Structures are given as C-alpha cells and as structure tokens.
C-alpha cells in the first residue's frame, strides 16, 4: 500500500509538533523515522493510524484520503507495535495474537492456523508457548509476540514505535536480525520509529531524519551516510560514519558457503575427526549434529590426546557465531572479541550456513573509505 503524507501538520496550541511534512513511503520497504526526542517522529507515526488527529494536511493510502476512512477499521488493517509491547496479561499468547483477526471476525480455524504460523515466524514454538501467559515469557519473547500480534491480520502496513527499545543490547541485536529475516519473507510496508542511529542504519531501507517537527533528510541509508544533508545529520551519524557504512552491509551477502567439504564434519568419534583433519591437512574444524546444527569446533592437538574410539563430547569447544542478517560491523566486533579470523554463520535454528572471513570485511571497509 502506498502511503503519502501531504502537508501534514500537528500543533498543540503554539507548539508545532509536526510542521508541513511531505513524505511518500516506499511499498514493502522499511522506512525509519529518526530524530531527537520531541522531533515529531512518534507524532507522525500516530497520525497515520489516527491515534493522534492531525491539525491539517492529509494522509493518502493508495490515492484514498484518510478522511474517507473509518478510524477503527483503518487501525484493524494497519499493524501496530510499541516499545512497551502492551500485551494483555489476562490473555494467553494465543488470544493475544488473535485479537485483530477476531475483531475482523475471521473463522476460528483460520485464526488458529494464523497464530501458529506467526509463532513459527517469530521463532517461538507454538506447541510450547501458545497457551502460556505473557507473565511466563522473557522480555525478548514478549516483544516477539508483540511483533507477531502486529502482523496477525496480515496488514500491508505496519507501524512500529521503538519496538526493541526496552530490550537489553544482546537480545536487541538478535531481535533485529530476526526482524530482518521476517521482513524478507513478509515484505510489508514498515514505518519504524527509533532514536538509535545504529538501529536505523541496520534496519532501514530508507531513513527520514526529523528535527523540530521538520523533515531534514529523506533518502536511502547509504546516501544518508555518504551525503549528510547538513551538520545536524552529520552529528546524528557521529564521527565514525565511514565505519557505519559497514553496518549497512549484511553478512548474508558477504559470506562464504563453499567452505563446506573441507571445514565441517558431522562426526561421532575422536578417530573419525582426526582422520578428517589429517585428510584435509587442517588443525581445526567445526562440528555439526545430524540436523546440521553447529555444536562448536575441535582442534587436532586435543583430539590426539584421546582414544580414537571415544565419542566426541567435551573436546567440542563453543564458538561465537553470526547470523545472515548481522551486519559487518557486528561481525568485526564479534571476531575481534573472540579472536577469530573466520567466524561461522548460522541461521535462526542454529544450522551452519557458511563462514565470514576477517580479511574480506577489511577489504570492503577499505573500499568504502575511499569512496567517501
């Protein structure tokens, strides 16, 4: 659905929260609204589903003015997720996700299928969690349910107001990665408010930068980084904006999947592992289980101390891994912290997909700097 904001203005008496705003949002893309607090980003978002009524101007959905739409019906067809999540504590996870489909009077078996599908999408096992209550979930799990709920009735447009803002940094990155993976599947028009520039760069296709109710710059992420419109945007990006270019690039376009035959084995005994390493002339290799899930790595030196027929267990050492939607900045920092030259890449189910090499990222960073 195409959404246009035309001369959109909101004032509270003498205070102008949003000032004569004109934006056309790209369909099926993530547009980030960012700026300091009080810049009008949240007000703009809430005017789109009429939680806040505009003072003047218009919002147009596929050529149809918001004036000609019923407020309640409009909201049922636009997904909405907020930082505080706002789950209903008295309802099961199932009932929480089912709210909008039920408001739209979907038949109950369709609702049930949809809830299970969404829980799969956000990676929470439906059988285990469907009939639990929000109070039994962790913060990150609740936010996944919040996202699932906003997608429940399959809206074309989803509004998100700092949905990951209250999650601790480690889980936030995981949620962001998962969110990008979800978006690739569902292809919604998403309008996403944040005040975190890193989140904006990581998630956004386009960024709209706000200051004091006005739109300062609206462009694709890389263009914003390369050509900040003014000092305000430069400030927002921070001094390391060249490196931030790496944040726009994802592991999934830059990892090596052809490592497989020589690097990984599904093995049972120490002897098999040693033979594998010798045959390929290597000192280390990754270990996966029968479902290709990464278990860790083994080193030749440790294996040689064991009897060949013993089953691999404590020799397997844990290893840091990345996800396809992690950006290259995260990849670098993970690899530096863990002291790795290459880092395995796994999907959300922990299945090994390939490896990222430090050298490759460094090359990309260098080329990026020279463009700047």
């Amino acid at each position, binding site marked *: 659905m195409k959404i246009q904001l035309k001369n959109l203005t909101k004032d509270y008496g003498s205070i102008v929260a949003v000032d004569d705003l004109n934006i056309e949002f790209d369909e099926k893309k993530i547009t980030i609204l960012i700026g300091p607090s009080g810049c009008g980003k949240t007000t703009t978002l809430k005017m789109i*589903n009429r939680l806040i009524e505009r003072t003047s101007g218009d919002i147009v959905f596929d050529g149809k003015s918001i004036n000609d739409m019923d407020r309640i019906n*409009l909201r049922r067809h636009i997904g*909405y997720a907020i930082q505080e999540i706002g789950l*209903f504590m008295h309802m099961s996870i199932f009932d929480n996700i089912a709210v909008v489909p039920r408001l739209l009077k979907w038949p109950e078996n369709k609702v049930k299928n949809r809830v299970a599908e969404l829980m799969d999408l956000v990676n929470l096992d439906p059988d285990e969690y469907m009939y639990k209550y*929000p*109070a*039994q979930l962790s913060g990150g799990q609740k936010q996944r349910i919040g996202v699932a709920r906003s997608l429940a009735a399959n809206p074309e447009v989803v*509004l998100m107001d700092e949905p990951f803002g209250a999650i601790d940094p480690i889980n936030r990155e995981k949620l962001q990665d998962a969110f990008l993976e979800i978006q690739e599947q569902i292809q919604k028009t998403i309008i996403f408010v944040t005040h975190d520039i890193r989140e904006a760069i990581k998630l956004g296709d386009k960024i709209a930068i706000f200051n004091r109710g006005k739109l300062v710059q609206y462009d694709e992420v890389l263009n914003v980084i390369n050509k900040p419109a003014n000092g305000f945007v430069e400030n927002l990006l921070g001094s390391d904006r060249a490196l931030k270019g790496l944040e726009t690039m994802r592991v999934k376009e830059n990892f090596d999947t052809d490592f497989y035959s020589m690097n990984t084995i599904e093995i049972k005994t120490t002897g098999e592992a040693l033979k594998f390493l010798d045959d390929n002339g290597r000192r280390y290799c990754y270990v996966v289980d029968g479902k290709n899930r990464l278990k860790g790595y083994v080193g030749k030196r440790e294996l040689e101390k064991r009897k060949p027929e013993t089953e691999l267990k404590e020799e397997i050492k844990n290893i840091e891994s990345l996800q396809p939607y992690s950006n290259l900045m995260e990849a670098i920092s993970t690899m530096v912290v863990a002291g790795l030259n290459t880092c395995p890449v796994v999907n959300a189910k922990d299945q090994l997909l390939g490896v990222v090499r430090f050298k490759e990222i460094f090359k990309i960073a260098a080329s990026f700097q020279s463009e700047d």
Partner: protein
Amino acid sequence: MEVFEYMGENWSYILEKLWQHFYIFLISWAFAIVAGILLGIFVTRSGNEKIGKVVLSISGAAQAIPSIAVIALIFVFLGIGALPAMVALFIYSLVPIVFNSASGLLNVDPSVKESARGMGMSNSQILRKVELPLVIPTVFSGIRTAAVINIGTAAIAATIGAGGLGEIILLGLRMMSYPRILAGAIPVTLLAIVIDIILARLQKRIISPGLKILQEGRSF
C-alpha cells in the same frame, strides 16, 4: 448447653431471622455491586478525571466511617424498618466496591490501552475485553470486603428495625440472656464465613491464570 436447647426449641424463629438477614444482605450487596462497578467505570472514563479524583478520595475516606454512624444517619433521614436498613447497607457496601473499581481502572497500564486502541478496538471493546478482565482481582476483593462488612453491619442495623439475626442478639442483650445472644451471634458468624468461603472459591475460578501468575511472580 442452654444455647443449643434454646436453638432447638426456637429453630424455626432463628431460621426465619437468618433468612431475613441473608435477604437484606443479598439485596443491598447486589445493588452495591452493580452500582459500584458502574460508578467506578463512569468516573474513570476520559473527560471525567476530575470527578474521578473526588470520588476516589471520598470513597477512600468513607471506608473509615463507623457503620453505626451510617445507620444512625439513615435513621434520621429515612426512619426505621427493613428498607432504610437496606439503604444504609447499600451505601456502606458501595464504598469498597467503588474505591477498588475506580482505583483498579485508573491503574491499568496506559500502554496496554494504547495498544488495544491501536489495534482497532472501540472504547467499549477496550473496556469489556481489556480493562475489566484486568481489574477483576481488585474489584472482586472489594466485593468480598463489602460482603463481610455488610453481613456484620446488618446485625447492627437491627437497631433501626431491620430484622434479621441482629434482632435476636439485641433481644438477648436487653434480657441479659446469653443463650439468645449466642443464638443470634453464632449464625451471623457462620453466615459471614460461609459467604466468604464461597466468594473465595469463585474468585479463584474467574481470575485469569495469566493474572494469577503475575501476582505470584512465578515465571514458570
């Protein structure tokens, strides 16, 4: 055991008074539940915030007024009999129900209401599907308090001609007859205990498991 002798001889009289007692309790309490919840809802709707604050502070303070004072006031305005007594009991049980409903509804997390509105619930759907289920624990504890104080106060209301078990107690006091006093006091106590047990069971049933988990702070 003169008490049981007395009760044995006068069982039909005692049963009649027990029924009367139960009846004035039930009617006044039921009206208080309906009126209390409605009033609680009304004062917490947007636009009524000012009245809400006033009602909340009045009902908060009113809980400290002794029951005998309420009964005495009603006697001054409405005279004696079962009806004035029921009015007094109604007013007295209204207080905890209004207080708990209003404070419960005021404390519903604004972000929960915002997400409900953002998903396209109408005001009445937000009230019915979100706010009320969330405040059931608070409202219900007000209803339970109201029941227990209502049954106790109904005994005192016999002083203005309410009838009920209080009548037997009053008569016993006047005649200095312990068997009579006890023949009134024991059934009143039992009535209050039985009603409270029934309500406790009911409370367990109607509160969502999700809220119980929340209250107990249990994570799994």
